[in-house]
């Protein structure tokens, strides 16, 4: 469609017009709803909050919204691939490239990451007996940076310049020579902004877990989700720093004529190294927290402590460590030579060992227990076979010479969806069902939850199992169509049907939320007969949790207290807790940085300088505020 614009007429594809209309309509409905229900104070409160549960809730809320967006991309991909020579709507060629790039990038950075970080925010402080994260202000900054990055990324689509070089952004395709439009600048800056937030979260989680555990909560007694969070945070710290550097260099190549990744001075393979030194640990950043969630859930609903706790902790650490030594298994075909290929094949196989240990420990946790199949447990039970299937194709992929065949085909697409959806997404669903009462005070409806599970898991396998075969039949990834002669029709159609089954399962989530909030009853502190400290505090958790502070004598302290019919001992003598404040500064900082990014993307340098200066000014303001003073005066505390 062509639209007149300041005297010129510009071409706008119809999908973008549809998206504008849809967003405006939804925005208007939301606005009217907020007006009618007088929700402005609530929104204002959340915009200024530094409380971990509220920030966690916002992470989850926006993660789910972006999940719907990226999921729509997935359905559009599947519609375009449903039959040979298809020409569905506008999604061929460049549009298709934008489609899988936004799908992949959003799913990883703006869906999986925030949902996991949201669950960490909600659960970790409660699990270890902390009153909040160590740096509540920083936590709010992290959140708003994530949201700023995500919105920036989404804007590119609305202005018809979505990034189009794949979520891996391989140079030299991603340099300005081959993709001159601003799309990939959006990619660089939105990941840069949200990545900064992620790094801050990692620091925050590490300090919280190291400094703010309840008395007696030794590391050797810590729940496995908290352990996974700790190790994941170290991985984030390293991996996201590397990504940040890579993006920084790419920005110079794109905007200021350097040649790090192309030309005589540079080498496109450097980008691949940087990207995968980030990228492989990233997949464990996504998987480890899910492992943690499942460990806690399986133990809770088997009424047994986790089997082989020390081995479970050790294998998390080992996986995290090995995760940094395998990145080149994504690069078997770039000619690193026989030596490198063999080395990375072997290290990759090694990771299967600690992963296998975890799987068997989960299974043996159930043995001899009483296995109660609630919705969270159902997701855990779906996770084990699904993830193991992704794991075994992982081992197959590590066989370097065979990888020459699998690489960049739909076999790989199948593999990584089995691992990412199998662990991360199922883990997130399980975690949301599990901790929902800690967020809202209500338990989600079990029956609808089970509908959600079955539709999702059946749809999932229907979608991705056939892709193993289409890959081996020679279907490369990132192609928008295939031919009749390729013999790929039946399997691709099956995939598409499966994808819609998965999509339809999300309707049950919506229905469930509605039903639970309309008719659900408030539950007490401990709806699942839990084992760890989060089930001792109110549902939803309040801002002054753990007063008085419990004293921990063993692993799963709450469970053993219940079994022996005693109350947890408590104390009032605790470390000073982080102080919660209400402040709009984090929001403003993130806003300034997105203005700066926009200025950079469109090379309106004046705007960039304004945004940057404003962010810098806000840093100074922040450095000069000390909320402890006001707090001490008010409460009559004297600090340390």
């Amino acid at each position, binding site marked *: 469609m062509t639209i007149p614009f300041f005297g010129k007429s510009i071409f706008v594809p119809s999908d973008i017009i549809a998206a504008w209309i849809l967003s405006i309509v939804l925005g208007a409905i939301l606005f009217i709803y907020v007006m009618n229900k007088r929700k402005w104070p609530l929104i204002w409160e959340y915009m200024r909050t530094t409380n971990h549960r509220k920030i966690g809730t916002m992470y989850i809320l926006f993660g789910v919204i972006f999940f719907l967006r990226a999921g729509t991309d997935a359905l559009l991909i599947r519609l375009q691939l449903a039959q040979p020579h298809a020409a569905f709507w506008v999604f061929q060629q460049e549009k298709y490239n934008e489609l899988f790039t936004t799908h992949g990038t959003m799913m990883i950075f703006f869906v999986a990451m925030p949902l996991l970080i949201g669950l960490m925010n909600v659960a970790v402080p409660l699990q270890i007996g902390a009153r909040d994260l160590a740096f509540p202000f920083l936590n709010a900054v992290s959140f708003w940076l994530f949201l700023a990055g995500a919105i920036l990324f989404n804007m590119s689509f609305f202005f018809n310049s979505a990034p189009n070089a794949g979520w891996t952004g391989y140079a030299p395709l991603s340099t300005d020579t081959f993709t001159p439009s601003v799309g990939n600048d959006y990619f660089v800056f939105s990941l840069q902004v949200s990545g900064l937030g992620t790094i801050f979260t990692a620091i925050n989680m590490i300090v919280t877990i190291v400094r703010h555990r309840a008395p007696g909560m030794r590391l050797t007694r810590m729940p496995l989700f908290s352990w996974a969070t700790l190790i994941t945070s170290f991985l984030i710290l390293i991996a996201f720093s590397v990504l940040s550097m890579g993006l920084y260099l790419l920005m110079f190549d794109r905007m200021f004529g350097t040649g790090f990744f192309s030309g005589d001075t540079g080498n496109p393979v450097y980008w691949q190294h940087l990207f995968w030194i980030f990228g492989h640990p990233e997949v464990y950043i996504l998987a480890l927290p899910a492992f943690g969630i499942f460990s806690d859930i399986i133990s809770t609903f088997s009424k047994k402590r986790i089997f082989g706790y020390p081995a479970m902790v050790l294998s998390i650490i080992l996986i995290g460590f090995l995760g940094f030594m395998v990145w080149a298994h994504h690069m078997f075909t770039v*000619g690193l030579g026989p030596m490198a290929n063999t080395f990375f094949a072997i290290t990759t196989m090694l990771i299967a*060992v600690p992963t296998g240990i975890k799987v*068997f420990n989960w299974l043996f946790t159930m043995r001899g227990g009483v296995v109660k199949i609630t919705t969270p447990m159902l997701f855990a039970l779906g996770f084990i076979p699904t993830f193991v299937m992704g794991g075994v194709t992982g081992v197959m992929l590590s066989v*370097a*010479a065979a990888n*020459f*065949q699998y690489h960049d085909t739909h076999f790989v697409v199948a593999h990584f969806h089995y691992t990412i959806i199998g662990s991360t997404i199922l883990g997130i669903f399980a975690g949301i069902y599990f901790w929902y009462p800690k967020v809202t005070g209500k338990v989600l409806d079990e029956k609808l939850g089970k509908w959600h599970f079955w539709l999702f898991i059946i749809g999932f396998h229907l979608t991705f199992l056939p892709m193993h075969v289409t890959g081996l039949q020679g279907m490369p990834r990132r192609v928008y169509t295939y031919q009749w002669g390729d*013999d790929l029709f039946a399997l691709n159609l099956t995939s598409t049907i499966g994808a819609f089954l998965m999509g339809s399962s999300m309707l049950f989530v919506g229905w469930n939320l509605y039903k639970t909030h309309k008719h659900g009853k408030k539950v007490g502190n401990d709806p699942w007969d839990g084992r760890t400290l989060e089930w001792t505090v109110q549902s939803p958790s309040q801002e002054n949790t753990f007063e008085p502070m419990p004293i921990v004598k063993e692993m799963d302290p709450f469970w053993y207290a219940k079994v022996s019919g005693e109350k947890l001992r408590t104390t009032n003598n605790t470390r000073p807790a982080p102080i919660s404040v209400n402040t709009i500064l984090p929001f403003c900082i993130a806003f300034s940085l997105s203005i700066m990014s926009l200025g950079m993307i469109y090379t309106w340098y004046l705007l960039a300088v304004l945004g940057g200066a404003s962010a810098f000014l806000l840093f100074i303001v922040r450095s000069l505020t000390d909320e402890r003073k006001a707090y001490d005066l008010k409460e009559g505390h004297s600090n340390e």
Partner: protein
Amino acid sequence: MKNILIRIRLLVFACLLTGCDISVLDPQSKTADNQAFLISFSFALMMIVLIIVFLLMTRFVWKYRETEHNKNTIPKDIKGNKKLELTWTILPILLLTVLAVPTIAVTYNQSATTPKATTQDDAIHIDVTAQQFFWTFTYGNGKESTNELVIPENKSIVFHLKSTDVIHSFWIPSLGGKTDVLPEKELVYKIDNPKKGTYDGKCAEFCGVNHTKMRFTARVVSEETYQKWLTK
């Protein structure tokens, strides 16, 4: 051994979907044959793991599920079990060692290298130039062809891969795995003993707008036909 593997290959995939031909598992050259062997071998080993996990899980969930009977019992706590845990640490290591041996052997043989390292005399050398979005093949006598590769059967063919713009990837599923085609750096990939036939070739590395259409045909012909074609 080989026989069993071929049978597994055929059985599992064929009965999964009768009628489809899976080019990677129907290799038409020595190179692709080795790769298909690795695929089937690793698949067989991994099926063992998969089946054990499935069986254990089904059994445990069924046997220990909550019933009216055990609803209120509190199961005995088990902290772990050294012997069991050692078992599922050591057995996988053994399994992976078994897999690692052929992996290393074939990988050492087949990994793409830089031009210096290839010293086989009787091999046929072909220059492959990838460019957005087509392939040019240059033969020993200077003949060029576009999007059509012609090679003689039962020879060693050495491809010298080079790109003029972005990264592409050279792939003929029936004849062997892929090798990236880089700008600024020549890579060399060898395919041994192709069989007569016509096969699809594809670009396997996303390279821009028409990546999808960057396909070519590979014709493997007899020696005489090849010589005739060269001088035509």
